[in-house]
């Protein structure tokens, strides 16, 4: 009943905007060949149809999901929207179409290609988010804490609750360099806001001291007889290393622990640091 049409939908890149694309697809009983957000700015060969974001339409789709499919499907769609999978919009449209046809049963249709692809994408998002629960590194500047991350997926909304609860008494910022967004938190207040081109300030004396202590700990905890670089890289992929003080490029050989310590000491005394970032 749905016809594939030689069209691309273009929308404003918001979740509500995507829901309006779903609405549009149902209105005309058509499936576009692609859905792009405004920012993608790809040179499209396809004729493009601009989809306005209309809260009423978006709300109708949003309410229909738990009602006609199930609430787990809505959760999956929300998470799916934050993944970095190519053509995630079209994937979500296909998933919702299947869902509106089959109802709650879709959550069991794990061998279906669309469902499978969405679940895999969400799994990847969750894995990366879980990594970042551990790999975010705050630098402390007096009363404020700040961290920079470069995730593939948009993990900030997934890790938000965790950090806002853990550091509920602190003022902090986590800057997502990839997506140009930042999670900011002050006691009682939190938000994810757009932020461009921000860099961490240089560490002060106290920050440098605790970074060195952490590096000292990191070097001392390894058992040399069990050294296994391959295992470490598979559990902590290299793309995370850039923002981890203990893995910073200026620190290479883990074997020369004591020399390292001597160096960092000297730098401490000279008031300079080989800190990260």
């Amino acid at each position, binding site marked *: 009943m749905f016809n594939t049409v030689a069209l691309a939908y273009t929308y404003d890149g918001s979740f509500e905007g995507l829901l309006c694309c779903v609405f549009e697809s149902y209105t005309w009983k058509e499936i576009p060949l692609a859905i792009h957000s405004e920012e993608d700015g790809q040179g499209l060969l396809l004729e493009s149809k601009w989809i306005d974001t209309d809260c009423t339409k978006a709300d109708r789709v949003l309410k229909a999901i738990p009602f006609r499919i199930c609430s787990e499907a809505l959760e999956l769609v929300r998470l799916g929207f934050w993944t970095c999978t190519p053509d995630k919009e079209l994937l979500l449209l296909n998933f919702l179409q299947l869902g509106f046809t089959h109802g709650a*049963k879709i*959550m*069991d*249709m*794990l*061998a279906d*290609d669309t469902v*499978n692809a969405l679940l895999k994408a969400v799994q990847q998002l969750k894995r990366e988010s*879980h990594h970042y*629960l*551990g*790999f*975010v*590194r*705050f*630098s*402390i500047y007096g009363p404020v*804490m700040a*961290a920079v991350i470069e995730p593939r997926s948009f993990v900030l909304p997934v890790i938000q609750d*965790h950090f806002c*609860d*853990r*550091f*509920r*008494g*602190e003022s902090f910022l986590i800057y997502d360099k990839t997506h140009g967004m930042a999670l900011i938190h002050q006691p009682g207040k939190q938000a994810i806001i757009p932020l461009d081109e921000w860099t961490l300030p240089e560490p002060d004396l106290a920050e440098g001291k*605790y970074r*060195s*202590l*952490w590096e*000292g*700990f*990191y*070097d*001392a*905890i*390894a*058992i*040399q*007889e*069990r*050294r*296994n*670089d*391959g*295992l*470490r890289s598979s*559990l*902590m992929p290299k793309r995370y290393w850039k923002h*981890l003080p*203990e*893995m910073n490029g200026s620190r290479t050989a*883990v074997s020369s*622990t*004591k*020399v390292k*310590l*001597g160096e960092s*000491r000297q730098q401490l*005394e000279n008031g300079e640091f080989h800190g990260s970032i």
Partner: protein
Amino acid sequence: MVGFDKNVCSVYTFSYEGEIAVDVMEKLQILTASAKYDVACTSSGSNRNNQAGGIGNTVSMGICHSFSADGRCISLLKVLMTNRCVYDCAYCVNRKSNPTRRATFTPEELADLTIQFYRRNYIEGLFLSSGVIRNPDYTTEQMISALELLRNVHQFRGYIHVKAIPGTDDVLLSRLGLLADRMSVNIELPSRESLGLLAPDKSKDSILKPMALIKEKINENSSDIVKYNHAPRFVPAGQSTQMIVGASPDSDYKILTLTEGLYRKYGLKRVFFSAYTPVVEHSLLPSLDTKPPLLREHRLYQADWLLRFYGFQANELLDEAAPNFNPLLDPKCSWALNHREQFPVDINRVPYNTLLRVPGIGVKSAQRIVAARRAGTLDFPALKKLGVVLKRAQFFITCKGKPLEGLKVGEHTLLRSLMSGQELSLIQPQYEQLSLFDDTYLSALPKAETTGLTKGGWPDV
């Protein structure tokens, strides 16, 4: 500031009596290096939100914050309170006769490091162990004062794993348990005899007694929580233990049976294995150039997983006749090969527990199969999408009553498919001669050495 370079090594030989280390960095390095052989660095099993005025929370699945050069997870600031020790356990780097540099943290230093590392999100919390200074009670009192400072003054609500020192008074242990998320007592060695020879200051009873006390307190506490909602929690993440593998001649079968007994009798959350890394020359120990038995440790962990999540029992995996794991095949594949009469099973019919016993199907993929077959019959391509490792599973399953099309079950292909690349490389040069049951490489299991020690057990565990 005291210089700290390679030359310091010469100081080691005469300085171990005094506490030379005064600087926090030095202390941290010494007390970390002495704690690194403790395996557990998990922060799982506890789920607690923050509260007003506090810092920190705990997440039940645990979080790894980094991975050290040996590939082990760093979740907690794992240090000793002190590496001074009145005991003289042969295998231990901190034993009193070892001329090593000694240091002791003050409770304030320890609390400061924990909080500062925690705020920077370096760690999930603290793992505090200690050498025994004066006596177990005094040592435990020191640990309690550090933890009280963290919990009550700094309002720290992150994860704390603490070691119970055997021989500590019950009252002190109970106080310690209310401050920690997890407590552990190390079994150290898998048999009474090994313990008697290598750790003369510890006895089986002194290790099992605190374990029993912790279990009792956890049970008591869980009924209190039913009665009073705000009853303080006693080690909410339960207790764990660890034992050294390869320092004594105990077999895998003995170790696994003991492990199973500990899970059953003491309700342990985890049993950890530590491949023995020689740190000291001793007539009763493997020589210093012995490589840690990492593959054996790996096999034991695989078997431990089978006990905890796959419904296996120790005596299904090993027995007196074959008391050690095959280095070439994982325990589940070995089991399946020895029980070929139970296969193949039909993926669309058999219950979850049976799915779990098929090589190539794990907990996740078994759960997915159970869900997906509610929506429709599964075929082989579908299984692949669900994450089943068909390379292994193909020999043991049918879909809609039929095996995988074109499947050849020669002994050669079978074995080759069941082994991982790493396992194959162990026998690669001889690969051409490989056949299933008569091959010397497959039957050549690591034999327990019986020199020096006689085998002994922990009969009533």
